[in-house]
């Protein structure tokens, strides 16, 4: 009996402490302002693909609000049933974890559709933090975050292997450019740009080709831009992962960090890292999309658009778009290098998520859920008649590749950088 009571009190204490740390004015507003009018319902791609109450934004947020009311609302403690307040239990925290991690991609679309602008994604971010603090987060995401931290703690352990891999990629770049002068510099002090890739060669080779073509002063980061702790809502870990790159940039005295085509990596470094650190970063942070756009605008690259003659559409990553503000840069680049660009409807700020954002794609158990949630995107792609889908986020790229197979779209998925390289004249 005592053990049960102690466990319950412990859960309540952990939840209260975690919530207390996470609720700022932005989250408080989102928690309190919702009147459960239901107008946001169809804004969610999960609901549109499978109309269940559990997939409505207000249902998801309500899972956190029940706990919030129990812990913070006088009426929630006095008359919990009156306001639907609930104490944290193993069952409720487990349900909260599943709701936050498996049925919401934190895409922020519902915020724009809500008459009050309720930020359900921010509430779900809090839910993820709560679930992580309670040990209910998906193991895969926790392991990926821990692996990134381990790499930051022991970079020398990985250095030789990494440099050897980069050497191989450099030969590939030299072959493609037909020049032995092309390089992929690593650890070059005083370079203008520290370019931060992902783990795949497709986020290093095309960009290295373009940097070499324009004669950019750049160096490749030792680390990848992926920050899985962001998906966990684990700010201390997210900060440690970001600090690896920030310290590298400071050590190399670069002028700016350029993030590869990565959905969450860009807003994490551009917008969130300064908040985690408590001060602005001492250098500029840009996405490779902004850099490529600048090259196009300044005429530093020359193209043959005919090489990209097939119908092309662009999928807005929610992280780059609604959280990052990058809408026009990718479109300007695509129009410069391709002759048949077609928009999906809706697009830009109203674009639908691919169904796999914010870590969903990394958890194999949720494959069915994300493929179902991606139906809307698959239908959008099909309506454009495009043969190539461009996206600037690796999660989206993987998901759209799977949607292609699952829904028989008969498309190719590629990135802006690859598209630009293909058009080089």
């Amino acid at each position, binding site marked *: 009996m005592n053990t049960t009571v102690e466990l319950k009190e412990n859960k309540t204490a952990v939840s209260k402490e975690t919530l207390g740390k996470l*609720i*700022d*004015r*932005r989250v*408080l*507003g*989102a928690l*309190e*302002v*919702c*009147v*459960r*009018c*239901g*107008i*946001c*319902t*169809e*804004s969610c791609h999960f609901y549109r693909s499978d109309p269940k*109450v559990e997939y*409505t934004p*207000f*249902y998801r947020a*309500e899972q956190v609000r029940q706990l919030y009311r129990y812990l913070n609302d*006088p*009426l929630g403690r006095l008359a919990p*049933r*009156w*306001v*639907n307040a609930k104490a944290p239990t193993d069952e409720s925290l487990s349900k909260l974890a599943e709701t936050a991690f498996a049925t919401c991609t934190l895409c922020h679309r519902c*915020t*724009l*559709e*809500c*008459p*009050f*602008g*309720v*930020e359900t994604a921010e509430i779900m971010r809090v839910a993820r933090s709560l679930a992580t603090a309670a040990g209910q987060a998906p193991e895969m995401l926790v392991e990926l975050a821990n692996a990134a931290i381990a790499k930051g703690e022991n970079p020398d352990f990985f250095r030789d292997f990494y440099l050897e891999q980069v050497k191989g990629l450099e030969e590939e770049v030299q072959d493609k450019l037909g020049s032995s002068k092309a390089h992929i510099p690593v650890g070059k002090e005083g370079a203008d740009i520290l370019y931060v890739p992902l783990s795949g060669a497709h986020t290093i080779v095309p960009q290295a080709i373009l940097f070499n073509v324009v004669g950019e002063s750049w160096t490749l980061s030792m680390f990848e831009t992926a920050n899985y702790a962001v998906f966990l809502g684990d700010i201390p870990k997210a900060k440690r992962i970001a600090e690896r790159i920030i310290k590298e940039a400071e050590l190399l005295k670069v002028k700016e960090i350029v993030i590869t085509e990565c959905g969450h990596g860009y807003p994490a470094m*551009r*917008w969130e*890292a*300064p*908040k985690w650190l408590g*001060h*602005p*970063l001492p250098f*500029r*942070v840009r996405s490779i999309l902004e850099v490529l756009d600048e090259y196009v605008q300044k005429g530093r690259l020359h193209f043959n658009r005919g090489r990209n003659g097939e119908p092309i559409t662009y999928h807005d990553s929610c992280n780059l*778009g*609604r*959280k*990052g*503000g990058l*809408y026009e840069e990718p479109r300007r680049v695509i129009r410069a290098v391709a002759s048949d660009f077609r928009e999906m409807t*809706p697009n830009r*700020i*109203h674009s639908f998520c691919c169904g796999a954002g914010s870590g969903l794609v990394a958890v194999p158990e949720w494959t069915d859920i994300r493929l179902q949630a991606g139906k809307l995107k698959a239908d959008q792609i099909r309506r454009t008649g495009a043969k190539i889908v461009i996206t600037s986020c690796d999660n989206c790229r993987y998901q759209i590749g799977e949607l292609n197979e699952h829904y028989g779209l008969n498309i190719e998925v590629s990135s802006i950088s690859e598209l630009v390289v293909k058009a080089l004249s």
Partner: protein
Amino acid sequence: MSVFEMFGAVVALAGALICTAGLARLILAAQRTPFRTDIAPARGSAARGVLYAFTLGMAPWVKESARIHWVAYIRGILFHLTIFLGLALLVASPWLAQILTQVRLSVAVILEVGAVTGLAGFWIRLREPALRQLSTPDDYASLGLTTLFLALGGLTAAVAELLPVFWIISGITMTYVPFSKLRHFVYFFYARIYFGLVFGHRGLLE
């Protein structure tokens, strides 16, 4: 002033005091929570974002949801506008007899329309399975009290003898505000300001 009128006035004033004190406490508590917003160099303008949030950002034509739920959206707008009128009537109510009959009757009609939109709120909440499942007793109590406030406000504007009843209902409703979802109007400003600050700063609303 009759005893009943006196009683009504005391209830209304007490309700107004409790409401003001309760809301002040909520605002102070909200102001004590951390203010975390972007500190990275802006891509857009936070100030323009806030302006957008309170103007075009609320326009129904920019919202797909408003097109889908146009009945609920219009109902919501009418309901809230009539609440503001009801509050204005409450403030002016001690001088009700001095207000022109035509103005009073117009106010009465508008407030009764508001009360009908309140009833429609019940219908929508009970008809939609998702809303029915997630609605709390507080949702119904808040909607019921506000609807009653509008209905009695309308009747009082037409029949001044009902003023003490309007004051009593107003007092009860105002007392309930800080403890219920009726307090959401305070947080409306926080939600819209943050929407504007974040989305504006990041250049999303250009």
